[in-house]
């Protein structure tokens, strides 16, 4: 399998690369559109979604990535990455855009300011309980009919999957949890995505 890419425009991309290293998966940093053809799946890390949006346009990653997403390429977004994969953003800035792909509405900073950030245990898919961090985290406000909910926190949806796209509100890479990354790697293996030259 080709390596997994981690979008390295801004945010905690190094923690994702470290989490992949722990589970024995090769990872490369993605900053240019050409890099996208060298990988079998992509992680969009935590960071500031407004900044990742802007930098993806400046460095011409946006359009090729949207094409890949639409052609079934596996992509996993955490926190800001979830926002980038949502079809609709609530409480974004007036000019902010996402890549889209997940038929969801996502609410930015849904829990409040930094003093409302927290650690918690969440039941994720079939992986059981995982201990993760929610940092100025978004939540999934609404889901379309094709979207599967993989985790809730209280009544809030915090992890979703639609075909080859996985999006979560929280940070397993900050607490050192590998289960969610293992789940994504299995998605990439199953997808076995072939790039067209």
């Amino acid at each position, binding site marked *: 399998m080709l390596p997994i890419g981690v979008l390295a425009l801004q*945010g905690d991309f190094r923690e994702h690369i470290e989490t992949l290293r722990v589970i024995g998966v090769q990872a490369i940093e993605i900053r240019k559109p050409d890099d996208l053809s060298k990988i079998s799946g992509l992680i969009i890390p935590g960071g*500031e979604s407004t*900044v990742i949006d802007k930098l993806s346009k400046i460095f011409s990653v946006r359009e090729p990535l949207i094409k890949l997403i639409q052609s079934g390429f596996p992509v996993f977004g955490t926190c800001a990455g979830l926002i980038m994969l949502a079809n609709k953003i609530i409480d974004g*800035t007036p000019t902010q855009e996402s890549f889209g792909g997940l038929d969801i509405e996502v609410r930015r900073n849904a829990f409040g300011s*930094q*003093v409302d*950030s927290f*650690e918690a245990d969440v039941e994720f898919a079939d992986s059981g309980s995982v201990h993760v961090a929610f940092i100025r985290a978004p939540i999934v406000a609404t889901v379309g009919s094709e979207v599967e909910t993989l985790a809730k926190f*209280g009544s809030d949806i915090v992890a979703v999957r639609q075909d080859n796209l996985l999006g979560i509100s929280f940070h397993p890479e900050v607490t050192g949890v590998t289960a969610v990354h293992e789940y994504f790697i299995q998605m990439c293996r199953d997808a076995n995505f072939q790039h067209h030259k």
Partner: protein
Amino acid sequence: MTESSNKNTSTPLVKRGLAEMLKGGVIMDVVTADQAKIAEDAGAVAVMALERVPADIRAQGGVARMSDPDLIDGIISSVSIPVMAKARIGHFVEAQILQSLKVDYIDESEVLSPADYLNHIDKWKFDVPFVCGATNLGEGLRRITEGAAMIRSKGEAGTGDVSEATKHIRTILGEIRALSAKSEDELYVSAKELQAPYELVKEVARTGKLPVVLFTAGGVATPADAAMMMQLGADGVFVGSGIFKSGNPAARAAAIVKATTSFNDPDVLAQVSRGLGEAMVGINVADLPAPHRLAERGW
């Protein structure tokens, strides 16, 4: 419901975690809501809300204090990115006020006039995370011991002269490299020399890095300055007076953001350095009399 019993706010991991999300980004000083919007539009990862940028504090003199809560509220409501604000060194009540305003980070900053020439704020007592300045590793480790969740090398704020920023980031990272080369029984003396707790010194020696994110600050005025700080090993940059004291703040802010992401690509750096208008005029640190050097505040 299990939610409330299973929810821990303000843990060290959560406090340090926000700084992790800011890495690779630029945090910009702003004095009005309009400037905050310009900064956000240019791609700032966070803004630092204050009444006067360091260059003006320097020019106008007098005692520099925490900003008016109305100004901070106005900035918080005008942007969606994290908002930081400065408290004076040791002024724990200014910090209590900033926490009540729900800023996302407090900067216990040497740019303001110190309120305590002996003690820094006990930052563990707060729910909101703190960033503190450091000129060397020992100073950084003392701030972490007091509860800082993020460190920034100090540089010399309000000068537009990057030389002190270079010195401080090189010193901190060089001292970490030297520590990593030592055997464990030599670290007791290192802890004494650094005036920092042994366990923390040992952790830094073992991991080869600080346990918190390390940004750089103080004198960054151009895209090339920002990229140099990143190449030297900073996780991100603070730009204070360098943006809104320049000829074209929006263009300069955007260029510094691009340079911070593409810090290793000279072709990109050449391109983003073009046509930015005048940089801030600046002051050579060597011409500053010692009592006017802000970096020496902090103990």
